[in-house]
């Protein structure tokens, strides 16, 4: 079973985009890809075996690995496919919180039973969350979503991560010192996600900066009924993005939602300098009026001003190969290192040039049609070719750690827009801050 077999389904290909794109910015994934190209059948078998072993260890752990799995499931080039499959399995294995525990947790934090606080409260979870579950409540006419975290998640996550990092490092043959900053970034973000109070703060930060954007809706949070393990917010009526797409909405409506998404993200990045970093179809709800509801502020990413400034520079000069401004930006973003040989530098410049031309397309045209399959196929095949290029593969891990969540966000967004087959205005944001 060869690794280079081209995936057949479009969505599978779209999935690959996530990490292919990530290569443009942060080559930290290069090493994973390196392992992928030695496509001997025995190797795949070995990976499957390893993943199974690891899975049985992981499955005994609590919610932690779920989040890690989500993070790593960004694509099967990040971790070999077998590995990711096993992580995905782990996701379905957690037992839901029982009603007695939900009631106990309420009594503990609020000294009241859910039914003393709500007129109605669903006895079972209506939605699974990655490290908890969501119940539906009603007070008078207002409906609420109540997200409750599994017990012991925060405590065990750290030790789970400590377990995963060395396995991943060894299994994938990474250099521990080179990849440490990236693991740290992921670890810090994941730990943040276990603190629901932080999520409330995050939500406030984004919502207060986006509250007056037209066509975008957020839940209202109830701090009185929220703790580090419970979040109470108003229920957003509508369908999740995937369910909405299944109703076969018109091109006009899909464009509208796509435009709202695009503008929402550009507004956050350029004006707020903090972004909702989990653009996943489950985190958007399309309201009955065909407007965009945004939920789940567990993961947001602050864009440091020096990163922003360098990125800005990159966008301005990226199309002029070898311009001093571009070189500057590449150094600042740690894509070029002082110790790089001339050959390494040439490799980076080459890779950067071709990927930038490609992935940056939406930014350099007035409108962009994300239904364009050939655009996504091109990115995918360029990424595949790159992962086989030996001079590229031999580079050390690189790229600012901020690229991890930045790329995850952008490529999540691209993927959503591709799913929407949206044709939208993209160009006007590019140089907003210039």
């Amino acid at each position, binding site marked *: 079973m060869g690794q280079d077999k081209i995936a057949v389904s479009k969505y599978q290909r779209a999935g690959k985009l996530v990490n292919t794109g990530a290569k443009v910015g942060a080559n930290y994934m290069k090493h994973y890809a390196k392992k992928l190209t030695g496509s001997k059948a025995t190797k795949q078998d070995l990976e499957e075996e390893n993943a199974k072993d690891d899975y049985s260890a992981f499955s005994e752990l*609590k919610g932690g690995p779920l989040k890690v799995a989500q993070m790593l499931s960004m694509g099967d080039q990040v971790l070999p496919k077998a590995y990711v499959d096993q992580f995905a399995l782990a996701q379905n294995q957690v*037992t839901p*919180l*029982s*009603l*007695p*525990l939900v*009631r*106990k947790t309420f009594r503990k934090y609020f000294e009241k039973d859910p039914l003393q606080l709500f007129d109605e409260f669903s006895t079972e979870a209506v939605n699974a969350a990655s490290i908890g579950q969501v119940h539906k409540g009603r007070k008078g006419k207002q409906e609420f979503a109540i997200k409750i975290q*599994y*017990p*012991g*998640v*925060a*405590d*065990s996550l750290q030790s789970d991560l400590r377990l995963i990092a060395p396995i991943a490092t060894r299994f994938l043959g990474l250099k521990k010192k080179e990849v440490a900053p990236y693991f740290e970034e992921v670890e810090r973000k994941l730990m943040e996600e276990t603190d629901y109070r932080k999520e409330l703060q995050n939500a406030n930060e984004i919502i207060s900066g986006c509250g007056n954007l037209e066509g975008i809706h957020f839940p209202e949070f109830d701090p009185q009924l929220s703790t580090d393990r419970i979040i109470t917010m108003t229920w957003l009526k509508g369908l999740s993005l995937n369910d909405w797409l299944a109703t076969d909405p018109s091109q006009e409506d899909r464009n509208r939602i796509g435009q709202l998404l695009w503008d929402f993200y550009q507004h956050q990045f350029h004006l707020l300098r903090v972004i909702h970093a989990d653009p996943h179809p489950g985190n958007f709800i399309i309201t009955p009026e065909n407007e965009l509801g945004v939920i789940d502020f567990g993961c947001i990413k602050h864009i440091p001003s020096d990163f922003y400034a360098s990125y800005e520079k990159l966008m301005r000069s990226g199309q002029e190969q070898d311009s001093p401004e571009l070189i500057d930006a590449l150094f600042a973003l740690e894509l070029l290192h002082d110790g790089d040989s001339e050959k390494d530098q040439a490799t980076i410049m080459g890779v950067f040039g071709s990927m930038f031309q490609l992935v940056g397309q939406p930014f350099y045209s007035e409108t962009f049609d994300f239904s364009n399959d050939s655009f996504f196929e091109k990115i995918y095949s360029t990424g595949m070719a790159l992962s086989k290029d030996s001079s590229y593969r031999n580079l050390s891990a690189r790229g600012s750690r901020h690229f991890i969540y930045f790329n995850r966000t952008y490529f999540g967004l691209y993927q959503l827009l591709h799913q929407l087959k949206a044709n939208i205005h993209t160009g006007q944001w590019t140089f907003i801050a210039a």
Partner: protein
Amino acid sequence: MAKKKKAFDKLQWIAAYKSFVLEKGELPATVRELAEMAGQTFPDFKKQFTDLRQLETAVIALYFKEANDLLMADEKFEEYSNKEKQLAFLYVMIEKAGADEVFLQEFQRLKKTDRGFAVRLMRFLNRQELSWAELSWGASTAERVGVNPKQAALIQHALSTLMFFLKDYSEEKQDTDAYIEKTTDVLYRLTDTSTVRSMVDLGKFLFSRRKTTFSWE
């Protein structure tokens, strides 16, 4: 002239036992030793308990009884499934016992080697409470010592939870909650009769073939 205190009831003896253990860091060796500290007499003790063993069983049984009483007073309890009843019981029992954690730490340390304790507790609680218990496994032990296997199973589960709780150093003892959720889930899955029936079926089958199938001769 020391005026003699009124004779203790059961609850007062239980409280006296706990103070003794907390204060001395050891179990009372004789009834007289305990009675003396409590300002009571040997005959006072005998009016309530036959011996120290019975008292110490009652100390732990009280957590079970209190939890049970609370659940019986909760109008939601009847609506619960059997599994939810079991979960609710464990949560309330741990809440009750948790208030006495320091005592229980000492008690567990001193009582570790007493193998008969669980059986005495089962006998003590038998017929009194927990009549709603539904889950059962390993009926043979329970039957041998003459207790209802369903209640015995619940008591064993609750004792294991208590042990876990006493060694749980996680934040806010969240791991104990996870322990309760996960073990209850597993126990209910394991005792799903269809699973058990197929396991027994397989077991019998393999046993009948043990000579021919698993032998190299």
